[in-house]
């Protein structure tokens, strides 16, 4: 027994002196190792919606435009070499590059785009994210089966390489919208080979036969283990793609992921938990990235329940939250949010939510609860047991208002169900923008929107939002959206808490990976530069 143990120990020591780390090897081979949290729900880009799928789709597919490697509000060229709006930003003409090819060598044509948009909007397919295409004239009516005639939708193909998109109104920010993967083409010849246009579960996108038009194509897939993509030789800009491949690892546990990073098994992690952030700050600050992200943490108030139906109560609760203190002590890399929309480009959100305990007490007292007396014991619904921030807010409400709330934990789907059926008092929520424009944060508060979930319904807000759809001048539009957001913040159906940060670990050998608000790095410009690494 002892002899066996000694031999094993010796073997291990021998092994340990020889091997280069996986990251070093991958760097040498030009393969980027990325933590991606989970496997995608599907390889069919038109039926999925999440961040995980979108990380993969950026490698495999390409739309009319690409995200820029370092600038948020700039679009890099994609399949279209030219994309021009008319003077009202309503009709957009796309000219496709003739050398754009699918990974089987067949040309990407205007018809592939038209087909893709028809497919995602076909009601039978049940594509969850079809709403993103409602920017196109007639798209909503077609998707909701109010008409079966796709020619009513605003896409007109002129010839193999040219088409125009007619939108529902002026959309100066349309290039940002087009970066969303729902606008990518799908290979018509493959989709129709394996099924009909509106067929759910069409097998064209099985990983071993997936045909795509992006810089990479699928090389191998093993469930819950990895997805590897390799260079697509038919990609129009293949000569400028620096990586030879990318390996996506579905690591669900953030601590396992950071251990793998420290062990030299990953170039980029999907996230870094607060404890990991603290540890890395001390031990390896060069690898730690804390970057702004297009997302907001906020609390929804159920405006259909007493006493939260009283705007004074909602405002009081919102004013009693010390966001600076939360961001300094509880969150890592998040910014105090004074509005729902994070500041982006030229849009500066209104200062509608702020910490003012005195005013908060006054409002609560006016609402009939002086010093919190007689205030019912409300429940604050959460889904993440580890989050410490609700406890901090609970303490702040107790301290500043004399109000006692109870924290209630529910498992993820039960939590979602309670939120969506308004079966809660206050719920800790979050929202991530689909594209960089205030609209993606504001339109959810329309009364009919499936994501409102507060019971809040305000005519003025709806009218102003609708008005913004008709404005061409970007500056005037932002002013109107700011006024719209102010209405919402004054009514306080929600209390913004913090603008999210993206915390993750990045290996120093990765170059060309710059902070982006949507975290949508185009892999084409990423490069791996070998260097001395140390394992700790």
């Amino acid at each position: 027994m002892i002899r066996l143990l000694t031999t094993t120990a010796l073997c291990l020591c021998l092994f340990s002196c020889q091997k280069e780390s996986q990251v070093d090897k991958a760097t040498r081979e030009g393969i980027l190792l990325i933590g991606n949290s989970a496997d995608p729900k599907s390889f069919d880009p038109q039926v999925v919606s999440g961040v995980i799928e979108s990380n993969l789709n950026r490698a495999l597919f390409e739309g009319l435009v690409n995200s820029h490697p370092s600038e948020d509000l700039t679009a890099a060229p994609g399949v279209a070499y030219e994309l021009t709006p008319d003077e009202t930003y309503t009709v957009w003409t796309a000219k496709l590059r003739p050398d754009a090819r699918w990974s089987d060598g067949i040309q990407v044509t205007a018809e592939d785009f038209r087909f893709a948009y028809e497919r995602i909007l076909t009601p039978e397919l049940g594509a969850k994210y079809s709403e993103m295409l409602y920017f196109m004239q007639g798209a909503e009516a077609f998707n909701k089966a109010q008409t079966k005639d796709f020619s009513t939708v605003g896409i007109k193909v002129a010839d193999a390489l040219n088409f125009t998109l007619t939108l529902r109104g002026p959309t100066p920010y349309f290039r940002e919208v087009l970066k969303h993967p729902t606008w990518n083409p799908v290979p018509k010849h493959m989709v129709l080979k394996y099924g009909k246009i509106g067929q759910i579960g069409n097998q064209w996108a099985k990983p071993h036969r997936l045909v795509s038009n992006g810089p990479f194509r699928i090389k191998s897939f093993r469930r819950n283990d990895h997805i590897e993509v390799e260079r697509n030789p038919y990609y129009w800009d293949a000569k400028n793609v620096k990586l030879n491949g990318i390996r996506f690892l579905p690591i669900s546990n953030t601590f396992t992921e950071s251990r793998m990073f420290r062990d030299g098994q990953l170039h980029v992690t999907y996230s870094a938990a607060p404890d990991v952030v603290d540890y890395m700050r001390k031990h390896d600050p060069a690898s730690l990235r804390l970057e702004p992200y297009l997302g907001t943490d906020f609390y929804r108030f159920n405006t259909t329940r007493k006493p939260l139906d009283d705007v004074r109560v909602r405002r009081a609760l919102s004013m009693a939250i010390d966001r600076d203190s939360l961001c300094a002590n509880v969150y890592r890399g998040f910014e105090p949010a004074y509005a729902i929309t994070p500041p982006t480009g030229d849009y500066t959100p209104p200062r509608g939510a702020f910490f003012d305990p005195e005013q908060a007490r006054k409002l609560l007292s006016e609402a009939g609860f002086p010093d919190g007396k007689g205030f019912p014991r409300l429940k604050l619904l959460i889904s993440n047991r580890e989050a410490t921030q609700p406890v901090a807010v609970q303490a702040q409400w107790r301290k500043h208002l004399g109000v006692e709330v109870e924290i209630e934990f529910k498992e993820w789907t039960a939590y979602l169900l309670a939120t969506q059926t308004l079966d809660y008092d206050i719920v800790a929520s979050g929202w991530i923008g689909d594209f960089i424009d205030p609209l993606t944060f504001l339109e959810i508060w329309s009364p009919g929107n499936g994501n409102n979930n507060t019971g809040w319904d305000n005519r003025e807000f709806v009218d102003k939002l609708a008005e913004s759809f008709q404005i061409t001048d970007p500056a005037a539009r932002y002013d109107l959206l700011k006024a719209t957001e102010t209405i919402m913040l004054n009514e306080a159906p929600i209390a913004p808490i913090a603008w999210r940060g993206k915390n993750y670990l990045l290996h120093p050998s990765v170059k060309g990976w710059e902070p982006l608000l949507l975290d949508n790095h185009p892999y084409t410009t990423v490069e791996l530069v070998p260097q001395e690494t140390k394992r700790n």
Partner: protein
Amino acid sequence: MLKLLVSRFLQGLLTLFVLITLTFFLVRLMPGSPYTEEKAIPAHILERMKAYTGLDKPLPVQYARYLKNLIVKQDLGDLIRKDGVKVSEVIADSFPVSLALGLASMGIALMVGIPAGVIAAVKKNSPTDFACLSFAMLGICLPSFVIGPLLAVFAGLKLQSINVAGWNSPTDWILPAVTLGFINAAYLARLSRGGMLDVLNQDYIRTAKAKGVPGRKIVIRHALRGGLIPAVAFLGPAFAGMISGSFVIETIFQIPGMGQHFVNAVSDKEYLLIQGLVLFYGFLIVGANLIADLAQIALNPRLR
């Protein structure tokens, strides 16, 4: 013997049927549905999706359809949230990994646990006994989510040849197998120590000693057979548990095994996957128990 086998087999079938039925209805009592998502799915889309998977039908119709597919076509169905993936595909992909890891852990558990228990029993109340007992107590008390990360940090990060996680190189087996094996070794050590102590006090052992049979021979030839009965009874279900994967071990060491599906399927409300996994696990348990019963009969003449 044959009668016993047949009766056990029939009992097994009945157990599995009750299991399927209970699971089918229980999973549908959970709040939420497979379509509950953070961004609400528009109503007109939701309708199409439910019609496609048949979840819009009344429960008895769904149940009848499920049983029919299961019995007639041996089809466990498709995943609801993942497009075009079959439940059987998920099990077929992940079970071999869990089986391999389970067998390796079982090997470690047997090689460490049983000798430790037997030695402890033979050297009762000696420092060796206390050492074995403390080791066993440690294994029972320390959960895998403590041992796993500790091993990963202190062995995985320090030794370059061992990765902290992953399932690619042969050395990737070491940490998860040791973690899972250690915990089961601890139980085995305690059970075999207890069993051996019982047997060592019996008259026939005393007789053997009186006849001058050497100590080692008494333990191996005479005592071991009876002393291991409690451990063998434990091994059946423990083995089924080990080869069907462990959520904790798999997430700590990033292993594409079956254990994580048990947990994720529940939180995703992936009804058919839960049913498929429970059925498969039930099948393993029934099978392992049957084998454990047979092994006990082989070890214990009084059961024959």
